[in-house]
């Protein structure tokens, strides 16, 4: 593969570079050409900027939380209102991270950019709906910001009743925001399902789709099937607060646990909205950077769908302590175990893919490796929580906090970063500093573990979550965690700087810098606004045999072996029978 020089006499296929009038970034100018664009790539880029800003805001809130917890009696928020402030900060951190960052991060930002290109299509099926989803996202975000500016929000991101029907913080603004964001998410999912169903190019059968598309497809199914339930739940919550409809409010004989059922019926599948696209990224990253065909393609594809469906049956594991009957809890516990099987299948397939591959430790690969490590920890600790007996002890402790940060940050965020580093050259046509990128991966990995490993211990020793102060005996572990979060924050900052610097001073990216075989590497970097002149010929997305490293131009190229003229043996200059006839 990285043989250095190309075999002589072979035919090299490379799309070259786009002209400025073709390049989707420059083919039309002015802010309006971006704001009203229907080009899925530009919408993807706008999402990327949006979710990054949201992540930045929520990340700063997280650092505030960690700094506050540096001391047992609280370091930042002081005085009478300290607890109140603390509640608001962790709520906004969680709500922004979940609704504004993680859910749209991979599907909306990377998915928008990649899905049509990977399909060799010109755009998603409904470009206007796509732009509409983006603006719904923006509106939802504005609602959240206005909730912040109004009287804050202190219910936690889960909006549990009855507290959320009685607190006088701005629950209505925030839930309206989440409602709108839900529609943004539904429309994105709907768009992708239709696009993948009807716009695959000739030759791309379901089992010739890149695994990222499978994952996106499974994610979209969840988005379409689960989010409406969240929508109606939040709507009922709003109605509860404005009109006291009495469905969730015990004061009017409502049942607050109904809210929990409704909420988790969406939100457990929603955690798979967060992680499935990450699985898709990792499947592609591992295969491309190991330069080896993905192991167990069908298993990975089917397990995505299995997760999507099984994920609808396990919501009760968030409510073991909410007073369900013991039979119900046992059933939910058992179902929870089944859902971890497909996740494990994926992990084993990735490991098997790397086995005997020729691994290049590029930045995306570093992120992919740390994903596998961190997600495995996160998933396995999920089993502790899914076990009834242990969950009675661990529920609502820092153990849960650590669990979901391992899957959401260690899983989704790390995969997102890996994906951004992987497709950055394609999106912006620039190569970033490899050294800087790897450094960021290392810092993120170290900082992350330092932050959240101690929280497992804290939780199992009984430190409850969502408390502004704690027993001094927990101080050492909390301080470790705070230092870790600083390191993690620094690592993320490095990643941001590396990427942004590449835009100014990065080298021009070739069409195929990593040796990927999926269709997006067959158009220029960045792609022209129409993606492909015509539907490209579709090959095997994980067949790397005809890709060669061109050391001279630092790129991979598709090589067609030198062709010999058919038939193999040249006919003799003079036919044998020539003599006879003369």
């Amino acid at each position, binding site marked *: 593969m990285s043989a250095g020089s190309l075999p002589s006499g072979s*035919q090299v296929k490379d799309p070259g570079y786009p002209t400025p009038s073709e390049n989707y970034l420059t083919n039309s100018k002015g802010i309006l050409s971006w704001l009203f664009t229907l080009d899925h790539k530009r919408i993807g880029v706008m999402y990327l900027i949006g979710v990054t800003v949201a992540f930045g805001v929520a990340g700063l809130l997280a650092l505030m939380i960690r700094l506050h917890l540096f001391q047992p009696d609280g370091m930042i928020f002081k005085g009478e209102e300290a607890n109140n402030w603390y509640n608001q900060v962790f709520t906004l951190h969680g709500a922004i991270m979940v609704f504004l960052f993680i859910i749209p991060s991979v599907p909306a930002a990377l998915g928008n950019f990649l899905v049509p290109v990977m399909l060799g299509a010109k755009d998603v099926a409904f470009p206007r709906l796509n732009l509409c989803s983006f603006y719904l996202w923006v509106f939802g975000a504005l609602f959240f910001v206005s909730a912040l500016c109004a009287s804050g929000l202190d219910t936690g991101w889960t909006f549990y009743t009855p507290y959320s029907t009685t607190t006088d913080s701005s629950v209505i603004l925030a839930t309206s925001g989440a409602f709108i964001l839900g529609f943004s998410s539904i429309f994105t999912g709907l768009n992708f*399902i*239709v696009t993948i169903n*009807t716009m695959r190019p000739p030759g791309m059968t379901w089992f010739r789709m890149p695994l990222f598309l499978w994952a996106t497809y499974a994610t979209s199914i969840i988005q379409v099937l689960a989010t409406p*339930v969240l929508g*109606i739940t939040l709507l009922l919550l709003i*109605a509860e607060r404005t009109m006291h*409809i009495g469905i969730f409010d015990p004061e009017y004989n409502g049942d607050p646990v109904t809210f929990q059922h409704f909420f988790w019926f969406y939100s457990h599948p929603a955690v798979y909205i967060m992680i499935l696209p990450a699985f898709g990224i990792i499947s592609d990253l591992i295969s491309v950077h190991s330069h080896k065909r993905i192991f167990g393609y069908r298993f990975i594809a089917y397990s995505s769908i299995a997760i999507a469906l099984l994920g609808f049956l396990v919501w009760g594991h968030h409510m073991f302590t909410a007073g369900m009957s013991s039979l119900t809890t046992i059933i939910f516990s058992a179902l929870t175990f089944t859902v971890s099987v497909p996740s494990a299948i994926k992990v084993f397939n990735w490991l098997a893919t790397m086995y005997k591959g020729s691994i290049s430790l590029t930045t995306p690969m570093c992120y992919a490796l740390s994903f596998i490590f961190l997600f495995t920890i996160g998933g396995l600790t999920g089993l502790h929580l899914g076990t009834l007996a242990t969950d009675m002890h661990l529920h609502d402790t820092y153990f849960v906090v650590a669990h979901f940060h391992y899957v959401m940050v260690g899983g989704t965020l790390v995969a997102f970063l890996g994906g951004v580093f992987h497709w950055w050259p394609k999106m912006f046509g620039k190569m970033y500093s490899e050294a800087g990128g790897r450094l960021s991966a290392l810092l993120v990995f170290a900082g992350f573990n330092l932050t959240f490993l101690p929280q497992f211990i804290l939780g199992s020793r009984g430190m409850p979550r969502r408390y502004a102060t704690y027993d001094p005996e927990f101080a050492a572990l909390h301080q470790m965690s705070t230092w870790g979060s600083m390191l993690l924050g620094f690592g993320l900052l490095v990643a941001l700087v590396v990427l942004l610097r590449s835009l100014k001073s990065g080298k021009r990216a070739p069409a195929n810098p990593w040796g990927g075989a999926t269709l997006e590497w067959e158009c220029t970097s960045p792609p022209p606004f129409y993606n492909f002149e015509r539907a490209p010929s579709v090959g095997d997305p994980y067949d790397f045999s005809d890709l060669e490293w061109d050391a001279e131009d630092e790129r991979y190229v598709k090589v067609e072996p030198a062709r010999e003229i058919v038939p193999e043996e040249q006919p003799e200059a003079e036919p044998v029978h020539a003599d006879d006839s003369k």
Partner: protein
Amino acid sequence: MSTIEASPEVGHDEHGHDHDHPPFLAHHFDTPEQQFDSGKLGIWLFLVTEVLFFSGMFCAYAIFRALRPEVFEGCSQFLNTKLGAINTGVLLFSSLTMAWAVRCSQLEQHKGLVGTLAATLSCAMIFLGVKAIEYSHKFGMGLLPAGLFFYDPSNPHPTEHPPYLAYICAPFALALAGVLIWLVVSAVSGNKFQFAIAKPLSVVCLCFFVGVGLGTVLESGEESADHIDVHADPNGLATAPVMEQAEKTMAAEAAPAIAASGAMVAVDETVLKILAKDPANVGVVSSQNALEQQTAAAGTSTVTGDGEILGAITTTEVDVMTPTTAGVFFSIYYCMTGIHAIHILAGIGVLVWLLVRAVRQDFNRQYFGPVDYVGLYWHLVDLIWIYLFPLLYLIR
């Protein structure tokens, strides 16, 4: 054979863009069929989300009806079955005209398309007009969601309440006025296209008031008998007017087997009585011996039922059986029918858009997707009402 090598490189440059690209085909689709299939799949998925959206409320309905069947049955008496039935008929008819519209668009019958779309819209408006009567009547009586519920059985029709009907009608009156002005202006200025749109639209807007009229007539027919005397008796005991009224209601709604429904009447009567916010009743409910007292008064079976429910759901609260309990029914009623009405409004919006395009003759044999998609949506909205009607109006 040697052509194989050449083909990937040449001959695909100018291709695929301009040939055979009719104006209605979006640039990113290859064929009209692909565009149609995408739209169709998209709308079906959207309908799935709609069903799930409503399913949350159907769940809430199921839960609370299972918890408090007697409240649901009792409160359902306050819904006017006649109006509900009329509305069901109107919506069913509109589904017919909608399906017809799809056919017209496929056959390029442009006049017929405009006509059937306008008919569908008119039905939607009649539906809303009738709904306006139902809503304003209930608002006036204080039959509101739990927190706002102020129904007072001794004065079920308070005279001084805001003119709810006028509030609801105002936007429609404005729309009607606007369309009429538009009609006149376009007629005077000779703009045929605008006139062709304004004409059916003015009929459509008028239909709202037809619905209001229809609702008023039917509602007032019932008015005199409507729950007035029921709660006048402070003790809430089984009295003649109650029986009379209950039977009247039954008869008016042509419920079969009245004779056998003595027990049912008793149930209704108990519930209505329970709804009554008189101090005697609260006392009855809150204490055990009062409950027994009530048992003696109103028949063993029903009240034991109540007592069981009481024990099952409320352990701490004493004022369970106050009118706020009934509020849950009305909460669900307003949530479900309200969100359904919002869907009707949205449907009206897209139907108007279709109407404009139909007047412009945008649709043809190859391109009738939008009519088809809106048709599917409209059938779903209709279907949801078909479920809402029996679940809310016909449960006694």
